[in-house]
Structures are given as C-alpha cells and as structure tokens.
C-alpha cells in the first residue's frame, strides 16, 4: 500500500461515492471534500516535486501474458497536481449555489461532479502508467471519460461530442498502431525495453513511430490539422466542467507525447532525421506545426463572439507554446513549456470560472449582449483581469515567465522565424483577451443587467484562489520551477538553473520579484498622483452624455459588434475554412463509399456474387 495506491484509492472512492449519490443534494460538497482529500494525498507524495525517486504502485496485473504496472514520477506528479487542483477548484465552484440554478435548468449537478471525478481518476491512471499498455488503457479511458463531461449538457454539445469522439478514436487507433509497431520491434510493451532498444530502430521506423504518436497524441492536444473538435467540445460543457477540461484535459496529450517521444524514443533521433527536399529536420517540422498551432487558433479566437468559445480557442493556441518550448530542448525551452502547462491551467481555470460566473448572473456568454459589468461584479472583474494578463503573458503574472523562457530559448537556439511566429501569436492573444474583457466588463451597461449583483462566495472563493495563484507564481516563479526542474530530471533532459525569482543562468537572467516590485512602485506613484488631485465626481453608470446629448440606455454606443472588423478583413478566414473543407470532404467521401457498398447488398441477386467469388478464388489458385 504505497502512497500512490492511497491516491488512486481516494480517487476511485470519489468516483464511486459521487456515482452512487448522483441524486443527492449534498453530493457536490461531499465530492469537493474528497477532491481535497486527494489533494492532500498528493501532497504526501510531495517529495516527487523536489526530485524524489519514482513511486511504484503495489498493484500490477498480467493479462494475456502482458504485464500492466503503474508508477508515479516527478513529471506525473507535476501534471497530477494541476489536474487535482483544477478539479478541486471547479468542484467547489459547482458545489454551492451554482448547482441549484444548474438543477433548475434541468441540469444534473451530481452527474457533473461524477464526470469530473471520473476524469480525474482516469487521468491519474494515465499519469501513473508504467508501460505502453497501461498508457494506452489510460489514454482511452481519458478520452471516453471526457466525452461524458462534454455531452452531459445536451443540446448542441452532443454534436461536438460526436465530432470529438471520432477524432479521439482515430488518434487512439494511430497510437495503437504505433504501440503495435513497438511491440513488433521490441517484443514487449515495457518502457525499459523501448528506451534501451530505441537507439537501434531504423530511421524509417522512427519516422513512422513519431508520426503515428504525434498524430495520435496531437489529436487531443489539438495540433493543427486535428484542432477542429476542441473549442466547441470544451466550450459547450457546463461552466465548471469546461473550466476543468480547458485547464488540463488536452494536456494529457502533451504528457503522453513527453513520455513516449521525448523520454523513451528521444528527441535526438528526430533531430537527426532530415526531411527530403527541404532544409528541415523532423523536429523543425514539428516546431513549425506548433507555430501554426499557435497562430491560427489564436486569430480564430479573435473572431469568436461567445466568451467560452473564445477562451477554448485560446486553449489550442497555448498548447502550441508548450509543444514549441519542449521541442526546443534546451533547459530554458523545456522548462518554459512545462511551466506554461501550470501557468496556462491556472489562467484558463480562473477565466472560465469567471465567465461562468458572468453567465450565472446574466444567462448569456454572447459578447455582443454583455458589457459594463465592472461595477456590478468587481471581484469577478479582478479575477478576469488577472487571468487575461496571465494568458497574454504580460508581467507581473505567471504567463509572462513561461513565455519569456520560450522566447529566450528560441533566440538562444537561433530560431528567429519561430520567435517571430510566437510573438505574432502573443499579439493575437492580447487583442482577443482585450476584446473579451472589453465586451464583458467595460463599456456600456445593458439595461437588463442593471440590478445584478456579485456572485456568492462559494463561487468567488475558487476564482480568487486561482487568481492569487496566478499572481504568486508570477511573483515568485521559483516555487513552480522547482517542480518543473524535477520533472525535467524525470524526463532525462537538461535542467534549468533557477532561483526563487526566476532564472539565473549564462543564457539569460530573469528576476520576477524585482520586476513586480518596480511595476507596483510605478502603480503606487500613479495612485499617489491620482488621489492627490481633487476628487472625481461619481455618477450613475447609466448617466452618459455624448456631444452634450443625454444617451438613454437603449441606444448603443458601446462598440462591441463585429470587433476588429478591419483586422478581420485583412486576415480573412481562409485557414479555418480549409480545415473545415478537409473534414467535410472526408466525411462526404465516406458517405459516398458507404452508399455504394450498401447498394451491393440491395442488388437483387446475391447468387451472382457467389459465382464471381468462386470463379475469382479458383482463378487465384489454379490460374
């Protein structure tokens, strides 16, 4: 009974309890408490966060002569921390008042808790996997568990869920093929054999394997050709659910890719492989894929008019940053990539929770029908502000640290084009998050929202906690960098020399404590000037004038519709169109084929096929 067993047992218990008590009123709080218990159990394994050695699970199976084992190392611990943390936050958020209203609009809060618990359990199983077989098992379980969370809202979400599960199954099949190939090459499913013999694989096998695995895992990360499912599937889930999904779900793909491609096969092999008729290596190609994954979805997010969709599209883009950073494979880059997982998760959870708080009050996430809520929901506004600053990667929030590391590593490695690409991506992020906060909290208050109030504490608490996490880890990134570095050690890649304030190395220095203090000093000066002046007159929010005319609340001067029209006009929408076109063409091909195949079964004389088959097979043997 190791600590890992305890953790998995707690997680399983959570699933069972929340599953059995789906209909109970109190189930929300119960499962929240049990998530907290899981969190504590995870902290007992905290040694992993500081370079502890891997913890084996005492449970192991042998099925069809194939051993299945589970273990936890620093990398798994790092991801598990994020998983359970975001699960805890969303569970608390969903446990209280929110559940009542959700229940009133015939949703099933108990089912939501159950789905989150199930996802957590399966993710822990995946993170704990000790060989390729258990990895695949965990992978499939995660895919199908998240389907439950996606479609439980009903309505249009089921279509997104269907799309997701088809993509996911395709990815899983690619992974299965890859695993099968490895089994053929090494004769077993164990990590050790793969790590030992990977050096002997022929480069064609390496290409096939890495393409299969990166395609398979990339589907879940929403890498570029496979990204169409993600935004809708995450956004249409019930509020806290989408917070959880957006925070961690698609990172499982990153974890699996880290384990298989980086840890076991080794990135060096990928770098060694040149793609014919190009000056790129396989690794560079993947980095470019990551770059486009950053740019396109980010600018797609710019065009969304639904807050949840906007955030979800960002999730895809930020995943590109992480993959980019890890593929750079110097201490800075990989640390930046891993750190960004944590930072982005905290940002995204905070943002989604804030948005669902807004939805909870206003019943809409349509950016064209919101605005001016800053005075009505100030704390939510603060959380959202912190979140978008972090998301856009602006100091002093934590997003800045990880992005800085990634930029820095790109410059150090001498990859200017990719650097430019990432910067463009960041630009898009800033623009779109500004659209988000402007259309929701700033500008003109709509008349129907005049009397709404701040959301209750049960919902505010997790939001505020997350916001403070965002700030604190931005203020003292060393806290997280410890874990990141031990994760790097677990991956067996060079580690980053870091301090509490940030990075202290030959390739670049960063001390967030100083930066933050300077910034706040600046803010302090500004505030001093502001308050030393004579008092500003407070007016009612709806008391507005333009050119001497009184503006009634129902004439719209708040510019929200068709935001960034000019920019949109310039970039257009050709890229997203192409992917949609690809997808639909594949579907239509399948339907064409299946129609014709069914025609064969409708032919009115099956005996003819018997005759043909007999003749052909005889010809095959005799002729």
């Amino acid at each position, binding site marked *: 009974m190791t600590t890992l067993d305890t953790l998995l047992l707690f997680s399983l218990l959570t699933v069972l309890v929340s599953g059995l008590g789906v209909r109970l009123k109190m189930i929300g709080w119960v499962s929240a408490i049990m998530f907290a218990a899981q969190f504590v159990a995870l902290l007992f394994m905290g040694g992993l966060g500081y370079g502890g050695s891997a913890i084996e699970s005492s449970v192991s199976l042998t099925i069809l002569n194939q051993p299945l084992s589970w273990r936890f190392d620093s990398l798994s611990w790092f991801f598990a921390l994020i998983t359970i943390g975001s699960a805890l936050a969303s569970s608390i958020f969903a446990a209280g008042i929110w559940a009542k209203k959700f229940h009133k609009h015939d949703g099933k809060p108990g089912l939501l808790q159950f789905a989150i618990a199930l996802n957590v359990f399966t993710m822990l199983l995946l993170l704990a996997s000790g060989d390729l077989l258990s990895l695949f098992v965990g992978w499939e379980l995660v895919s199908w568990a998240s389907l439950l969370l996606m479609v439980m809202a009903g309505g249009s979400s089921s279509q997104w869920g269907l799309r997701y599960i088809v993509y996911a199954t395709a990815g899983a099949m690619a992974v299965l093929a890859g695993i099968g190939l490895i089994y053929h090459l090494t004769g077993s499913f164990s990590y050790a054999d793969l790590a030992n013999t990977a050096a002997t694989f022929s480069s064609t096998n390496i290409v096939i394997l890495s393409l299969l695995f990166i395609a398979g895992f990339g589907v879940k990360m929403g890498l570029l050709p496979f990204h169409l499912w993600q935004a809708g599937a995450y956004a249409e889930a019930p509020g806290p659910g989408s917070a959880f999904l957006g925070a961690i779900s698609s990172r499982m793909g990153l974890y699996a890719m880290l384990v298989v491609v980086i840890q076991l096969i080794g990135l060096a092999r990928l770098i060694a492989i040149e793609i014919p008729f190009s000056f790129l290596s396989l690794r560079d190609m993947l980095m470019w894929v990551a770059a486009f994954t950053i740019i396109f979805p980010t600018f797609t997010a710019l065009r969304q008019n639904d807050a949840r969709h906007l955030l979800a599209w960002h999730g895809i883009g930020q995943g590109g940053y992480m993959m980019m950073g890890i593929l750079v494979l110097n201490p800075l880059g990989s640390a930046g990539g891993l750190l960004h997982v944590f930072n982005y998760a905290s940002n995204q959870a905070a943002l989604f929770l804030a948005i669902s708080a807004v939805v909870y009050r206003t019943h809409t996430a349509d950016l064209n029908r919101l605005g001016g809520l800053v005075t009505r929901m100030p704390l939510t506004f603060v959380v959202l502000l912190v979140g978008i600053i972090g998301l856009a990667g602006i100091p002093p929030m934590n997003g800045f640290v990880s992005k800085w590391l990634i930029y820095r590593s790109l410059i150090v490695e001498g990859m200017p084009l990719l650097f430019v690409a990432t910067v463009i991506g960041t630009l898009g992020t800033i623009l779109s998050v500004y659209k988000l906060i402007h259309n929701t909290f700033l500008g003109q208050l709509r008349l129907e929202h005049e009397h709404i109030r701040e959301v209750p504490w049960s919902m505010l608490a997790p939001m505020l906690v997350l916001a403070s996490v965002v700030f604190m880890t931005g203020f003292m990134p060393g806290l997280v960098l410890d874990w990141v570095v031990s994760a790097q050690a677990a991956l067996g890649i060079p580690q980053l020399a870091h301090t509490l304030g940030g990075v202290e190395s030959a390739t670049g220095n960063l001390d967030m404590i100083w930066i933050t203090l300077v910034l706040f000093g600046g803010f302090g000066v500004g505030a001093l000037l502001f308050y030393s002046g004579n008092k500003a007159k407070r007016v009612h929010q709806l008391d507005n004038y333009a050119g001497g005319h009184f503006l009634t609340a129902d004439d719209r001067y708040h510019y929200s519709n068709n935001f960034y029209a000019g920019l949109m006009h310039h970039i257009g929408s050709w890229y997203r169109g192409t992917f949609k076109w690809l997808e639909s063409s594949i579907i239509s091909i399948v339907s064409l084929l299946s129609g014709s195949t069914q025609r064969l079964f409708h032919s009115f004389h099956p005996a003819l096929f018997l005759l043909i*088959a007999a003749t052909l097979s005889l010809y095959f043997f005799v002729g």
Partner: protein
Amino acid sequence: MNNIAFNVALPLLTAFLLPIISSGSKSATRFVGPFVLLAMLWFALAYFNVLQHPVAIALGGFLPPLGISFHLDNLSLLMAALIPLMMLLLWPYNNREGFREESLLLLLAGAASGLALSGDLFNIYVFYELLSVASFGLAAANRTAAAFAATFRYVIISGLGTVLALTGIALIYTQTGTLNLAHIGLLASQLNNPVGLSAFALIVIGIGVKAEIFPVNGWVPEVYSTASPRISALLAGLISKLAVLVIIRLLVVAYQGSQALTLLLVLGMLGIIWGELSAWHSKDLKRMFSFSSIGQLGMVLVAFSIPGDAGMAAGIAMMLHHLVVKPGMFLLTENWNGPIKKLKGAATSSPLAAFLFMLFALSMIGVPPLPGFWAKLLLVTGLVEANAPLYIIALVVLLTATVIEAHYLMSTALKIFSRGKKKHFKKLLQTPFNLTIATIFGAVLLAALFTLTPLGNKLNQIATESSDRSLYIKTTLSLKLPPQVKQQVSKVQ
C-alpha cells in the same frame, strides 16, 4: 463412456417425438426442450472437466478413418457447451404457437453440436445442411411476407453454397480418397496443389454463406431484419461461428500454406470494409447490427488468417466476444426497431437498455478495459507480428473500420441518450423478457472483464491445442490404426 454422442442424439430424438408429445400434453412441450438443453449442457461440461488432452470417439465402433469420428478438444467442447447455453438463453419461453419452432430449435441444437464435434468432412456437410434447413424454418417463422421472401433468397444462395461445398468435398475425396479430417491431414501434401486449394476455396465460399463471409452474405441484412430478434441473435451469434469453426478445422488440419491464408485474409478485409461502411449508412438498428456483424466476422476471418497460435488465439477471442455482444444487441432491437432518429429519449424510457447498448457498443469498438479491447489487441499484435505487407494493409483497414464503427455507434448512442418527447416513451419501452436476457449477456461481458487473467490463460491453452496439427491427427488416428493407414502415419512422422 462416450456419451457425448447424446449431445447429437438427444435433441434429435426429442425433436422427432415432439409432435407426439405436443399432441399428448401442451405443457410438456414447454419444458421438455429446455430440459434436453440442460442435459446437453451437462454432458458437455462433464467432458470439459475431465478432458486432459484431446480425445477422439469412433461412432458406430468403426475406427476412423473408415468410420465417422468425433474429435473432442477444448475448442469443440467449448462450442458444444455454448450451443445449449445460447439456446437456453434465446429459447422461446413465451411461444404460444405449437411445437414447430421448438422442434426446429432442438434440431438446430443437435446439428450445431454435430458440426462442432464432428471430425469427418462429409458428416460435417450433412450436419451443415441440417443446420441450414433448420435455420431456414426459423428465419421464416415470423410469417410475414418479407420474411418469406428473404428466407427464399436465403435458401437459394445457401443451396448454391452447399453445391459448391459438395463439389469441393468431391474434389478432396478424388484427390485423397478419404473423408476423415485427420486422415486428410496426413495426406495434406497431396492437397497443396491447385486442385486441393481450389477445393478449399469452394468449401470456404460454400460454408461461408452461413459464416457471413463477404461476397456471399447478401441474405444477412434481409433475414436479420425480417426474422424475430431472438432468431437473428442466434444466427448472428452462434451459427455463423460454427461455420467459421469448420473452416478453421480445415485450415489447421490440411491447409497451412500461405495461399489459403491469403484467401481468408482478403475475404476478411473485404468483409470488414463492406460491413462497416454499409453499417455507417444504415438508418435503423436491425440493419446496422447485421452489417456490423458482417464486419465483425470479417475481423474474425482476418484474425484466423494469421499463421500460428497468435492467429488462433486472436480469432477465438474475437469469436467469443462477438458471440456475447451481438446477441445482446439484437435483443435490444425488438422495440427499438424504428429509425434511429426516432430513438431520442430511449434512455429515459428504459435506462437499463440504454446502459446495455452503451456497454456493448464500447466493447465492440474496443474500449479498454472491456473484453473487446483485449481481443482487438491480440488481433493487432498478431497482425504486426505476421509482418507481411498484406497484413499491414489489413491492420490499417481494421483501425480505420474501428473509427467508422465508433462514429455510427456513438451517434446512435447520443441519440438514445438525448432528451426526447414524453409521448414516444411508451413505444421505446423494452419488453422485460428481452431485457432480462440482454442483461445476462451484459453480465457475462462484465464477468469476463473481471476474470481476464484466467480467461487469457485458458484462451492461450485452447489456441495452442487447437492449432496443433499433428496433435489433431494423432488423437484421431491413434485410436487403433487400420493397417493401411499405419504406414502413412509412419511416413508422415
């Protein structure tokens, strides 16, 4: 002590006497059938326990190859035990229409047991014919116009199939001068030529009509959508497997060359493609399931076309999995037979059925840790191990087919689980009888999930045993060798 012959004799005897019994007392007709099936089950299981190594039984006391012999190994006994089990589950307990369907079912049981046990080519043909005729009667038992028409087309195509099979048998007899499978195995060298192989091809195509092999399965969607779900479940779940079993015996005993395997592989791949694509397009559950069962049997065929134990293990695993899953699915189509669009809200009207559907669907797609996944894993590893271009193509086909399968099954499942109108709920209610049986199948599936390790070991044992050619030959021919066979044995060994 060779009372395994009872497994063939008893059901036939009862079927012969059933008209008289029924004219005597109606109630007797109800329980005599299940009683006989229980007895068959008992005999089979009794053997299953005592069996250490394969045994052969000379019927009529005439030594094989002169007489007909039953070959008892784990595989055939497993089938012989599964037959009465499935029959008991799918027995028409609530049938009010006289004795005919019952006696047909009993005849089906006897024929199936004979098919599973027999070790003689022509005897297999006879039992196959008995199986066919009984299944014709059952397919038409629904007595609708469409059922009659579909059954007629079924009769015609499978009649042609039996003609081809008989021709193949004649070729084999002309080539080897014997009918006993083990003896044929001794003379397998004489069959590794165009004549022998084309005999194999003819038999495969002929028997393949029941095995739903690709080009000769035009009857499948029609019959399954006109017959009653119980019968469809029986045909798709049990009967097709027995036909496959015959092909496997021939393959193991006589045709271990790569050409025969290639034929099976190609047919299986075509079956997968055709079945899954057609299922993707179908608009009602019955036909969706019949097409998907075509695809599944294609997968079984592909599995068996892998040389060696690996293929045998994968094939048996796929076979057993399909044997459990498909009948359960067909039983659900009794009241969910409308177009899939109309299934909205089915989950709220009968949640258990919806849960079962989800379970079966996931297991069919091969979602771990459900048994279907392990069967598919065996298949995938076997295909990769076989390591020939054609097998890699088969792997690609298999994986693609899985994606398609996932798409249509999940779109149906989402329809079932989505909210629907209250007024349809009555129509979507499942009958308790079917629901109970389907629940039993689901329970079996879950039980298999929790006993995977022992099952896997048993499976490997069965596979190694039943893919061992010389063992089969020794078992049958070492009873007491007639002189003219003896020197052939010595020649081979």
